[in-house]
């Protein structure tokens, strides 16, 4: 009987130590996970900001002007207005 009790105490002790080690290890893993996700979120946010900046630059009038200069499109064309507006409409097919 005494032997059984002694073995049980030892087993419980080993189980508690193992659980403790497991919990300690898990908490460190989780902490690392939290850290990594936070860093990733920050990186994504910064990438988003960079992409938004690039998109806005390529759709800006400033960029269009630079390209127009490069391609020699520097003379603005005047609109052509019809004297008779009906010319602009497509005749209906009979």
């Amino acid at each position, binding site marked *: 009987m005494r032997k059984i009790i002694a073995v049980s105490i030892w087993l419980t002790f080993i189980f508690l130590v193992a659980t403790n080690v497991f919990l300690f290890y898990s908490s460190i893993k989780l902490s690392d996970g939290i850290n990594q996700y936070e860093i990733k979120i920050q990186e994504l946010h910064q990438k988003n*900001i960079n992409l938004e*900046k690039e998109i806005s630059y390529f759709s800006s009038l400033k960029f269009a002007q630079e390209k127009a200069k490069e391609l020699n499109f520097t003379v603005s064309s005047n*609109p052509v*207005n019809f004297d008779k507006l009906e010319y602009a409409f497509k005749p209906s097919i009979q």
Partner: protein
Amino acid sequence: MKIKLLFLIFILFYLAIIVRLFYLQVLRPRASNNQPYLKTEKIVPERGKIYDRNKNPLVLNENSYLLYLEPKKIDKKSKLIEKLSKSLEIKEASLEANIDDSKYYQAIQGGLNEEKKKEIESFQLKGIGFDYQMQRFYPEASIAAHLLGFVGKNETGDNLGYFGLEGFYDKDLKGLPGFIESEKDILGRPIFIGTQEKVNAEDGRDLVLTIDKTVQESSKNVLKQGLEKYQAKQGCIITADPSTMQILGLVCLPDYDQANYFKFSEDFFKDPAISDLYEPGSIFKPLMMAAAIEEKKIKPTDSYNEDGPIKIGDYSIKTWNDKYEGKISITRILEKSSNTGMVFVGEKLGQGNIFKYLQKYGFDEKTEIDLQGEMVGYLKPKSQWYPIDFATITFGQGIAVTPIQMLRAFTSLINGGKLLKPYLVQKITSSDRENIIKPKVERQVVSKTTSEIIKKMLVSAVENGEYHWDRPKGYQIGGKTGTAQVPIAGHYDPTKTIASFIGFFPVDNPKIITLVILKEPKASPWGSETAAPMFFELAKQLIVYYGMTPEQ
């Protein structure tokens, strides 16, 4: 004996642990900054962005970094100084003088972009670090510098909007900071079973403007060319939708580069469109004419005998060219911009009515436009007015107004008589809410009938005026020129003028009203020869942009 000694050691050991725990948990406050494991960090919110009416970005944020040094960790000081001074373009001597070896942290330079950060990191020097920051980015450069304002720092080093929209909407744009309270181990990792509290920051609200970036860009180009061509000191172009008083474009030159605002003097930051006072001159005449028609003191079919200068006390009022046409119609008074004709209109209207209408047009109050730094015009108390003041006010002298006040008052003449509040932000958006700002009618100034009459007179003023401009063919445009002399030390300087033109189109249902002002143009002092051609050049571009079909 040995067992007892071991027992005593254990007891002492446990007692030591209990005393230490008691000290840490009870005697020392838990949330103290001295806690070695509990760290609190501020989460800085992202400042709100600013878009034009078509959701094109005008102001965004970009990543930037603050370079700092940890002098105690530096091992190769001379190499660090040499490399940093080259990279940051700072003189070696001043960088060396700035490094204080007794300090743990020293900020060196903010606003560094990612390329610069990578370049400095590649030096692989000890004692260098970077703090992440965000700064404003302007995709269209300084397309609307006065309008947008800039972001600087306050006395505690936090971001603060100055001037324009950044200043006016600072509270909406800056958002609310959050914080992270976290217990961390010796390696800086969060302790999972410890305190972990996070309150997210609330990013600033975005602004959607009434500004159209194409109108803004066209206005800026026309103004830039106009300033060079007419050698003017300063100029402004303001364009609005007369039915709502939404501002479509607002530009004044010279302006400044918002990204490098610290390189400019404070004089450049003030927006002349809302902060500068000037005498409006002849563009004021239609306001008085409309008041007289509204009060039924004159009719468009009436006539006036323009037979020479008018004497008021010691003063003599002449026409701008000292030429007199005899019997002319009321419409002709505006067409030829007759000062003596306007004195006649003013006499018919009466002193009480003149003052009443100046107040109705809002010249004694701010327009309450949503920009920081608006000034109110100068309208002296009625008790201080002399008869000559009531005469000169009819042609826009003896009163000081801001360009935005002038535009608002004139708009009421062509939109059915409504005096509207001018505004620039039509929508304020956050992640969960959208606040739409609607036009606000302040009061009815003149009736719809008067408005229609004055519109026709203004079309006639453009078509039959003293000067023939290169107008867009097939379109009816109404407008009025103005040339005001600049008062200096109690008298008017004939060599210095403020030339202006205010015009609108299409006439039946105006969609565009534009005010062009040039300060002290040297090529010609007249509004008809400087500001008016600029207006028609802009009108041609806007007609194409908005796809307006010819009316005639």
